[in-house]
């Protein structure tokens, strides 16, 4: 039986790449399970949770929707935002922290860009005056 592996990919990189023994995910029809030997499938995942068991134990992923592609035991999940936690009770808090860090990084980037634009405009104005 083909062993299962899970790869979780976000735009910023691979969040998780691990062998797993089982996986539970939710699509538009409800929860479904993936175990070794399951037929290949593609599923569109709504925002929600994904549960898996790997050698470390049970893991929980909060994802903002995405696509799950199971091909010959290799399960690839692609999403634009995700957070990983080993504890279901702290998953939401972990996600909140990830989102906060992301927002802070975005704000810092925007602020740096705004500074650059302001500086460029000031220089342009100075050169025009001169």
């Amino acid at each position, binding site marked *: 039986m083909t062993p299962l592996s899970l790869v979780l990919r976000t735009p910023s990189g691979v969040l998780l790449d691990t062998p797993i023994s089982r996986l539970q995910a*939710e699509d538009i029809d409800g929860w479904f399970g993936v175990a070794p030997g399951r037929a290949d499938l593609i599923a569109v995942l709504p*925002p*929600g*949770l994904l*549960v898996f068991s790997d050698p470390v134990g049970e893991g*929980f992923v*909060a994802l*903002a929707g995405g696509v799950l592609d199971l091909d010959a035991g290799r399960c690839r999940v692609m999403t634009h*935002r995700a957070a990983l936690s080993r504890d*279901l*009770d702290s*998953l*939401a808090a972990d*996600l*909140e922290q990830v*989102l906060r860090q992301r927002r802070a990084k975005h704000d810092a980037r925007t602020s740096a860009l705004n500074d650059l634009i302001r500086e460029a405009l000031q220089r342009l104005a100075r050169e025009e005056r001169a």
Partner: protein
Amino acid sequence: MTPPPTRDPFLDTVRRKAARMASARRERQRFWQSLAHVGVLGWVFVIPVILFAFVGRLLARLSGQPALAVGLILLGVGVGAYGVWHQLRPSVRDPEEKEP
């Protein structure tokens, strides 16, 4: 208690689904614990009844008095019932009651 909604629907969805999943898991765990408890209570009741019935039958045969067997079976039922009550006591105790 459900936390207040945030500006991020993704976070709200995850909070709601994680809480629902955690609650379902706790419920499942409680079910199996209750089932195991009921199983233990069954044995706590049955074992004394069987033991007393066995001893009673033995004594009745030796002494030739069948009433002894009936008496000891009833005693076994009493001991079993006491065992069950003893097991159940912590869970039915008044929550207001303080430990000594």
